[in-house]
């Protein structure tokens, strides 16, 4: 008897611990239907827990801030906005489940997210089938908006419900190659990626452009996203004689990678995309990342006059976590959905239309406003028309903007 009761207790405790841990993730949003107003929910999907949570929490909070601002300004009379945040842990399978859950919630008219291109791949079809607008603040994989044959310049938009406020890797990878070759005067690069949709795509685009400019590729390798030990790869970099490294991937691996490359004896700069542009990168590299470079979409949020209000509001709202690399883009993504809701309501004589999702999707293409990151509008593929990029460099333990510019051809 005693044995079986202990067994029950063990299972119950284990179960309860697991459940309570899960339960604390889905941040509950206010659902009180304030007298007479219609509740409109903007879904958010991002890695709120796990290794990429620094970026994910920034996305969630910034989208939340946009809805609060719209409510405060009473932007759309008779409509109260709120967010419903889902955690995808940067995992495509969880992303798809979240997408299905968000589609099932009738109040959801649009979704901000996700962070990862690989997660977006599983979500796009679900949203498209439901005619639910999706605006990603961070996806940079070209395939998502330009179709699988974008490499040969045959653009076909796979899903009409997909939009993004972030620039694609085509722009980012080429811009990085041009900077590294023309301005940093590096000619021999070692290319590493993490095999994910984002990292591998970015590294391939970079490599092609770097060769086209006249640089040589000293070697290339791939790493596993869950690994911590890159000493063998680092040794290869050191013995290859490369004068720089390009890494396609994200900061949880990029930090230790740059640390280990430097410890292996190769004192060369590591460059990456927006995935490594995060303070965590510097922390995880044990401050062994001075001189490392990253490109990120848009101009630095702190330097844009349009972003001053955003930064001030974000600070005033007292969120525990920083807005991170995609805060401004997430705010703009959420705001574009809010603008579309506003237009849909206005065109319906001031009343909320019954088929709000379809109407919002139709209005998205016409959205045009001055946002945190500049003028926000979408082209015929759903991509942002804002092609601004910035190169950052680590100096004294901080990311410092080195050069901002617009990519053209």
């Amino acid at each position: 008897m005693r044995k079986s009761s202990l067994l029950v207790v063990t299972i119950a405790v284990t179960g309860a611990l697991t459940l309570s841990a899960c339960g604390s993730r889905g941040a509950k949003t206010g659902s009180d239907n304030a007298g007479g107003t219609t509740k409109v929910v903007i879904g958010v999907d991002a890695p709120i827990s796990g290794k990429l949570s620094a970026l994910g929490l920034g996305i969630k909070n910034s989208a939340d801030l946009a809805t609060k601002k719209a409510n405060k300004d009473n932007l759309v009379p008779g409509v109260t906005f709120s967010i419903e945040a889902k955690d995808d842990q940067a995992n495509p399978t969880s992303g798809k489940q979240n997408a299905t859950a968000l589609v099932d919630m009738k109040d959801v008219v649009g979704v901000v997210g996700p962070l990862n291109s690989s997660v977006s791949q599983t979500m796009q079809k679900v949203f498209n089938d439901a005619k639910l607008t999706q605006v990603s603040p961070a996806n940079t994989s070209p395939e998502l908006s330009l179709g699988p044959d974008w490499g040969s310049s045959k653009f076909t938009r796979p899903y009409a419900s997909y939009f993004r406020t972030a620039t694609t890797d085509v722009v980012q990878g080429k811009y990085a190659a041009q900077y590294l070759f023309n301005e940093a005067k590096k000619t021999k690069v070692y290319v590493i990626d993490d095999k994910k949709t984002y990292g591998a795509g970015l590294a391939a685009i970079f490599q092609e452009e770097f060769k086209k400019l006249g640089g040589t590729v000293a070697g290339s390798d791939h790493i596993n996203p869950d690994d911590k030990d890159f000493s063998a790869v680092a040794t290869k970099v050191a013995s290859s004689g490369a004068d720089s490294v390009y890494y396609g991937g994200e900061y949880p691996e990029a930090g230790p990678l740059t640390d280990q490359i430097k410890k292996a004896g190769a004192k060369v700069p590591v460059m990456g995309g927006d995935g490594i542009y995060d303070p965590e990168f510097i922390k995880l590299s044990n401050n062994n990342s001075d001189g490392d470079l990253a490109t990120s979409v848009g101009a630095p949020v702190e330097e844009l006059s349009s972003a001053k209000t955003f930064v001030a509001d974000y600070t005033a709202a007292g969120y525990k976590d920083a807005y991170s690399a995609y805060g401004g883009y997430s705010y703009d993504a959420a705001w574009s959905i809010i603008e579309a809701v506003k237009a849909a309501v206005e065109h319906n004589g001031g009343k909320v239309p019954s088929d709000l999702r379809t109407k919002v999707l139709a209005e998205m293409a016409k959205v045009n406003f001055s946002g945190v990151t500049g003028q926000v509008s979408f082209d015929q593929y759903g991509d942002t028309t804002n092609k601004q990029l910035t190169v950052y460099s680590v100096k004294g333990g901080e990311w410092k903007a080195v050069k901002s510019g617009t990519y053209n051809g």
Partner: protein
Amino acid sequence: MHELPQNLANGLMLGLMYGLIAIGYTMVYGIVQLINFAHGEIFMIGGFGALTAYAALPHGTSLWLALPVMILGGVIASVLTATAAERFAYRPLRTAPRLAPLITAIGLSIALQQVVWAFYPGAKKAISFPQFAGDTVDLGLFHLQRNDLFLLAAAPLCMLILASFVRFTRTGRAMQATAQDPDTAKLMGINTDRIIVIAFALGAAFAAVAAVAHGLRYGQVDFMMGFLAGLKAFTAAVLGGIGNIYGAMLGGLVLGVAESLATAYIQNVPGMHQLGGGAWANVWAFVLLIVVLLVRPQGLLGERVADRA
């Protein structure tokens, strides 16, 4: 720089760490025939224990002075978790069918991860671990990271302590007896419950030392770090012959060196370019495991035991 010695050194360091963790798998399996899949999390908790101990010390304490305290903190955290797991999760299931404790171990592993994720301040992302400052140590043929010196000293020392403990002390001999035949050992007056707890505790202590080495080597700890490290260490234990403590260390070393060499050289074999590099290291590690188990099903140093008549 000479590439081969450097790659061997990289693999050796990785292997020593796998070996230290693998000891916990192998000791517990040797005595209760349980694969404690929560051992990776015991390792992870050791890392967080060491970090907590470091944070408790006055700011600016030299790492040399802090290190013993950190090891102690890690060992205490790991041993407490492991013995509690043994007492409340595994002991009630000792006579249950083998699958029951196995599933419990997997559940416990997830639960421990989530507890750290939810309750340790800042554990939602990787936390930096203190490191020794200074450049790498050049040894002519290859160089070693300064932070790896700890692992290089600690792993053989741990092995030596464990070997002499098992061979020369009464408790150690009682442990061997329990591993051979728990029922007879009990008849000879050995408190097998106590022996089992000691096996869990010893494995946890070594895992904690490995966690400190891991933290120093990679400069960070995170709540997920036990998963992959645990899986690799389990592989090392099977490779070396599960149940054999020397086998665990040997298996770890073989695995570490194999991974390192596979990353470096498979790519250069003509026609194998696609199958080389860091991304394929795990694949080659498991290919090695399969090959060894085909030739020697009991593992490198395992004894052929008539498990089932």
